[in-house]
C-alpha cells in the first residue's frame, strides 16, 4: 500500500467509528434525557405520563405523610404552585421540610407525581441550582437566602 492508500484507510476507519459514535449519541439524546421543571411549569404544561421529568422546589412544610412499606407523600412547592409527590423507598439524609428537593419520575393521570428518585440538597449551603432558579422565577427568592444557596460567601 502506498502512503496515500494507508492514509485513506485510516481516515475511512476513523470516519466510520465517528459516524457510529454520532449515531449512538443522537439516538440516546432523543431517548434518555430528562427535562427539568418547576411546580409551576408542570401545572401549566401538564406533561403526559410517558415523559420523564425532574421536578424541583422546596418540600412544603407540614405536607410530609409517611405510610406503611416506606411510602411517603409530600408537596413540592415553588411558592406559586404545589405538586403532590409520592415515593416508595428511603429518602436522602438531608430530605427535610422547607428544604430544596429534586424528584425524578413521571406525572400520573391523577396529578400526583410518581417519583422513582429523590435527590436532596447536600449540605446547608448547597441547594440544587434548578431549585434556586425555580424560586427566582416564582419571585420567592430572597437575597439573604443566597448564603444558603451556593457558595456566596
Amino acid at each position, binding site marked *: 500500500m502506498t502512503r496515500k492508500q494507508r492514509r485513506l484507510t485510516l481516515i475511512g476507519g476513523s470516519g466510520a467509528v465517528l459516524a457510529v459514535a454520532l449515531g*449512538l449519541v443522537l439516538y440516546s439524546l432523543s431517548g434518555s434525557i430528562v427535562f427539568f421543571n418547576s411546580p409551576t411549569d408542570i401545572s401549566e404544561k401538564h406533561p403526559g405520563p410517558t415523559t420523564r421529568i425532574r421536578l424541583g422546589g422546596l418540600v412544603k412544610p407540614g405536607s410530609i405523610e409517611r405510610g406503611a412499606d416506606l411510602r411517603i407523600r409530600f408537596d413540592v412547592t415553588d411558592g406559586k404552585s404545589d405538586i403532590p409527590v409520592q415515593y416508595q423507598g428511603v429518602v436522602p439524609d438531608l430530605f427535610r421540610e422547607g428544604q430544596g428537593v429534586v424528584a425524578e419520575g413521571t406525572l400520573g393521570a391523577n396529578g400526583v407525581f410518581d417519583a422513582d428518585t429523590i435527590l436532596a440538597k447536600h449540605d446547608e449551603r448547597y441547594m440544587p441550582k434548578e431549585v434556586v432558579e425555580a424560586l427566582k422565577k416564582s419571585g420567592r427568592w430572597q437575597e439573604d437566602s443566597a448564603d444558603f444557596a451556593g457558595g456566596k460567601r
Partner: protein
Amino acid sequence: MIPELGHYALVLALGLGLIQSVVPVIGARRHDAALMGLASSTALAQFAFVGLSFVALAACYVTSDFSVMTVFENSNSQMPLIYKISSVWGNHEGSMLLWVLILSLFGALVAAFGNNIPATLKANVLAVQSWIASTFYLFILLTSNPFLRLAQAPFEGRDLNPILQDPGLAVHPPLLYLGYVGFSMAFSFAIAALIEGRIDAAWARWVRPWTLVAWMCLTLGIAGGSYWAYYTLGWGGFWFWDPVENASLMPWLAGTALLHSAVVMEKRNALKVWTILLAILTFSLSLIGTFLVRSGVLTSVHSFANDPRRGVFILGILIMFIGGGLSLFAWRAPVLKQGGLFAPISREGALVFNNLFLTTACLTVLTGTLYPIALEALTGAKISVGGPFFNLTFGPLFLALMFAMPFGPLLAWKRGDLYGATQRLMAAFGIGLLAIGLSFAIEGRTSVLAPFGVGLAFFVMTGAVIDLVERTGLFRLPLAAVASRALGLPRSAWGTAVAHFGIALTLLGIIGAAAWGTEKIVAVKPGETLSLSGYELAFNGLKREPGPNYTAVAADFTVREGGSVIGVMQPSKRSFSAREQTTNEAALMMRGASQLYLSLGDDEPGGGIAIRLYYKPLVLLIWAGGIIMMLGGALSLSDRRLRVGAPRPAAKPALAPAE
C-alpha cells in the same frame, strides 16, 4: 502572623513564576546557558515558597485559627487531627493551593531530575510550566485567597462538611490532582516541542514517565473516589456519570490514549503530530475538569464550593491555554517531520485503533457532559443527561475497544499477522465462550447481555496471560530458558499485560454488581429477620454511641448463611451538630470478591427503621482492577529504558531545527 507569611510566600512564588515564564525562553532562543539555567533554580524556589504557603495554611487548620476565614468555614476544634489536615483541601481555596503545590512540585522534579533533557527543551518546558503556575497563582491571589482574615475571630468553626470527614476523602483529592496536574507535564513538553519546532523519538521517552505517573495517580484517584461514593452515599452506587466524575474520566481516557500513542512515537517515530495534539488535549480536559468543578456551571453532588466569578476567571485560563495551545499546534505542527510507515494491520495500527476508540469514547462523555450547558444557553431548557445516555454511547465503544485489546500486543510492529494472532488467541476465545456458557448456566437468563460481558472479560484476561506466555516461551521452552526470558522481558511488556488484565477485572466487577446484584429496601423492627440471596440478617436493635464531633445511631444485625452465623453488621448514622447534618456509615461484609451492603434510612413510626440491603456480586473487582491497572503502570515506569534516559539521537539532517 502565620497566615500573612503564607500569603506573602505565595506572592513571592508568583514573582518567581513570572520571571521563569520569560527568561528561560529568551535563554533558549539565544542559547544562553546562564539564562536557561535560571529556570531550574526558580522552579525549585517556586516549589519551596508554595510549599511554605501550604504549610502555613495547614498550620492554621491544625491550630484551629478561626480568625482565618477558610478555617472558620471548614474546620472545627473538635475534629480529629487527620480531618483538620484534610480540610485544608476540603474546600475551594485550599484545594486550589494544593493544585498549585502539585504543579510546582512537578516543575521542581523536572528541574532536579531532568538532567538528561537537552538544555533548550528543559528551559522551554519549565517556562511553559511556569505560565500555567503563574496564571493559577494569580487566580488564587485575586479570587480565592485562602488566607483572608475575619475582623473578629469566632470562638468555634463551622466544621468540615461531614460527608468529607472520611479517610478516603483525605487522600482522594491529592491523588486526583496529582493526575490532573501531572498531565501539565505532557502539555509543557508538547508546547516546548512546538516552540522549538523539532520532535523525535527521544522526546516521547522523556514525556512517557511523567504521563505514566500522572495516569497512575489518576487511576487510583478515580478508583478511590468511586469506592468512597459507594460506601458513603448509602445506596451502593459506584459510578453515577456525575459531571464531576466525567471530569476526571475524560483526562483519564485521553491520558490512556496518550500513553499508547507515545509508545508508537518512541518505538517507530510515527504519530508525532497526533501525540502532540493528544498531549495538549489531555491537559485541556484536565483544565475543563477544573472549570466544571470549580465554576458551578453544573449541578453536581460535588459542588460544595463554587462561585460564578471564579468561573469567569477559570474560563479565561481555559481559553488562554486550550486556545493558545491549539493555535500554536495549528501553526507549528506542519513543521514537524513525518515519521515511519506502517500497515493498517500492525502493532502501530492496533495502537491507532486504541487511540481512535479512546478519543471517540472520550468525545461522547464530553458531549453528554456539556450538552446540558449548551442547550440551556441556547434554548433555556434545563435537562439532565444521566446513566442511560452514557451506557448507550460510551458502553459499546469501550466494549469494542476491549475486544480488540488482546490482539494488539500479539501483532508485530510495522506489518502484523492478524490470522496468526487470532490463532494464538484460540485458548482465550475458548475460555471466553466457556465463561459465557457458565454464566448462563449459573445465573439463568436474568440478563441476556451480561454473560457476554463476562465472556469478554475472561477473553481479555486470558489474552493478557497468553501475551506473557508467548513472550516468555512458557510450555514451549525448558523452564530455565523461560525464567531467563521472563527476567529479560522489558518491564513495560509486563506492565501492558498486567494493566490489560486489570481493566478486564474492572469490567467483570461492573457486570457482576450491575446485572446480578439484589436489593431489599424495607422497614425493620427489632427481632425481625430479612433474607436476601441466601443470607439471613436478624435485626437485634439500635443503640446510641457518642463520637468526637457527632453522635451516632448504630444498628446491630446478625448475619447467617445456611443457618450458621457468619458475622455481625453494624451500619450507623452520624449526626453532626455543627452543621445539623447526618451522614451514613454503611456496613460492608466481604464474601470473597462480593459484598453485602447495609445502610440505614429514617426512623419509621412504631419503633422500626428503614434499611437498604444490597448483595453486590464481584463488586470488589471494580476497584481491585483499578489497583492492578495502577500496578501495571508502575511496572512500566520501572522499565530500565525510562529510568536510564533516552540515548541522544545522532545528528541527522532531518532532526535539525526546521525553521
